[in-house]
């Protein structure tokens, strides 16, 4: 190694400066580093700090540089704070653009020319997701992820119809508290509220446990609060990390009184917002929202009042109408009833008149028919009787003639009979009679030979004597 001889320290510094300038003057570097020993001179707007790299999981340093941000660099940091809601302070990891500068008295310094907002946002978001997952995991009964939304016990609480007793978690003397208090007290509707402030620090993760403790104070207070409001706001709003803190998220999610957040975060939604019953942007909005809530109740009252009034007036009109209608109906029906009865009476009268005239008339016709029938009948009867009589007379005439004729015929029979059986007829047929001693005899034994007797034949008497007698056998 060549010896350059003895030189003044400043000469060395100049030579180093020369080398560094040759090597780095045109270059800028994006480096990932942690911030420590940060101071911010507000008047000059100078940031002084150190950028370090540690062994992961320990505090052992691997690299360390002094750093500063002036002018445009300081402006970049202010913009960063504004965009991320993250204060540029110790113990944050940043992706930062630096120039390497050398100064004889300050040695090597990194001059900030820019800072990557997105890198820090990513880191914050990553942390946030881890916290949310842990909340869900460790409080499964009270916190659940449902789709992209988070359900919490607090969200499931019902707001009372009217909110009057409010516990307010905020920083003492903060602009947020003043805004909230002012808006509440001077509401245009004259609503009165009981505001119970519970002061606590609302920035810096270190205050998370204190805030949690204040919440427990609220829970244990003898007053039954309608709502807990967590607010911060006014002034420079840079550090919201407390509202992404696990302890704060957990106590909000599980709190038995509805929680409203109004923490003035313009960009992101914090875990506290996600866990709370309601979240609004600012303390003033929180106050307005509460006033609106009460206002809605009052409007409900007014609506009910209007409905009742309207319906009652309607009902009275309807009832009056019903009465009028009933009166008209009763009137009409009464008239109709009377008219019906009149008609009915008239019809009955007409029928009675008609029938009253018809009945005697019909009887007249009946009697007239009877009379005609009666008067014609005797002549017919008498004529028939006459005919009978004539018939009888004719019969008698006929029968007596027959009678007499029959009698004559019977007599004629006897006349001819007598003629036939008389002795004269017999003699004429050739028979003869024997008369002996003056008497007609029929016994031949009475006569003996020599006896004298007469025989009568027809109209002659023959005197004879018996000469002989012998038997006669008819042949």
């Amino acid at each position: 190694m060549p010896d350059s001889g003895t030189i003044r320290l400043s000469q060395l510094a100049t030579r180093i400066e020369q080398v560094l300038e040759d090597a780095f003057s045109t270059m800028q570097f994006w480096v990932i580093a942690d911030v420590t020993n940060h101071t911010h001179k507000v008047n000059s707007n100078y940031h002084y700090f150190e950028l370090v790299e540690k062994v992961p999981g320990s505090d052992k340093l691997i690299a360390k540089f002094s750093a500063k941000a002036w002018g445009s660099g300081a402006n970049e940091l202010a913009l960063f704070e504004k965009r991320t809601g993250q204060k540029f302070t110790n113990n944050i990891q940043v992706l930062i653009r630096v120039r390497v500068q050398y100064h004889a008295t300050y040695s090597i310094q990194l001059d900030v020319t820019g800072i990557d907002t997105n890198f820090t946002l990513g880191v914050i978001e990553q942390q946030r997701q881890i916290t949310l997952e842990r909340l869900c995991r460790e409080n499964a009964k009270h916190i659940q992820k449902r789709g992209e939304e988070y359900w919490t016990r607090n969200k499931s609480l019902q707001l009372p119809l009217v909110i009057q007793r409010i516990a307010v978690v905020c920083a003492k003397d903060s602009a947020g508290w003043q805004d909230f208090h002012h808006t509440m007290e001077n509401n245009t509707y004259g609503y009165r509220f009981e505001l119970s402030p519970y002061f606590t620090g609302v920035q810096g993760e270190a205050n998370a446990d204190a805030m949690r403790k204040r919440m427990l104070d609220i829970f244990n207070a003898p007053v039954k609060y309608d709502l807990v409001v967590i607010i911060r706001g006014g002034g420079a709003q840079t550090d919201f990390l407390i509202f992404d803190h696990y302890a704060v998220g957990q106590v909000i999610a599980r709190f038995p009184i509805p929680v409203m957040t109004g923490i003035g975060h313009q960009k992101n939604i914090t875990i506290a917002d996600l866990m709370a019953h309601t979240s609004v942007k600012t303390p003033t909005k929180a106050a307005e929202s509460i006033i609106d809530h009460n206002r809605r109740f009052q409007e409900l009252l007014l609506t009910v009042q209007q409905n009742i009034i309207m319906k009652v007036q309607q009902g009275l009109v309807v009832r009056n109408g019903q009465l009028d209608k009933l009166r008209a109906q009763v009137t009409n029906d009464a008239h109709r009833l009377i008219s019906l009865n009149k008609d009915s009476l008239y019809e009955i009268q007409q029928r009675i008149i008609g029938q009253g005239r018809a009945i005697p008339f019909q009887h007249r016709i009946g009697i007239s028919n009877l009379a005609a029938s009666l008067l014609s009948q005797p002549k017919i009867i008498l004529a028939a009787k006459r005919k009978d009589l004539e018939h009888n007379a004719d019969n008698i005439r006929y029968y007596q003639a027959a009678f007499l004729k029959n009698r004559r015929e019977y007599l004629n029979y006897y006349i001819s009979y007598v003629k036939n059986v008389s002795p004269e007829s017999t003699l004429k047929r050739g028979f003869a009679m024997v008369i002996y001693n003056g008497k007609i005899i029929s016994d031949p034994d009475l006569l003996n030979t020599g006896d004298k007797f007469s025989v009568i034949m027809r109209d002659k008497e023959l005197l004879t004597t018996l000469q002989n007698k012998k038997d006669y056998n008819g042949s």
Partner: protein
Amino acid sequence: MEADITYEQAYAELKQIEADIQREAVSVDLLAIKIKRASDLIAICQAKLQKTENEVNNIISQMEKRPSNS
């Protein structure tokens, strides 16, 4: 003629004589007498018949003189 014998008596006797002769209950010596009696009875009957007929005709002719249908 017997004045007081009726037609029916006369006719009955006639019938009896006929019956007697029919069953030859009459001797020849009486026959002539019976026949004579029958002849008389017939005459009586005829007379009575004639008389009745005359009377009846009179009555009928009177009936017919009366107008039955005036």
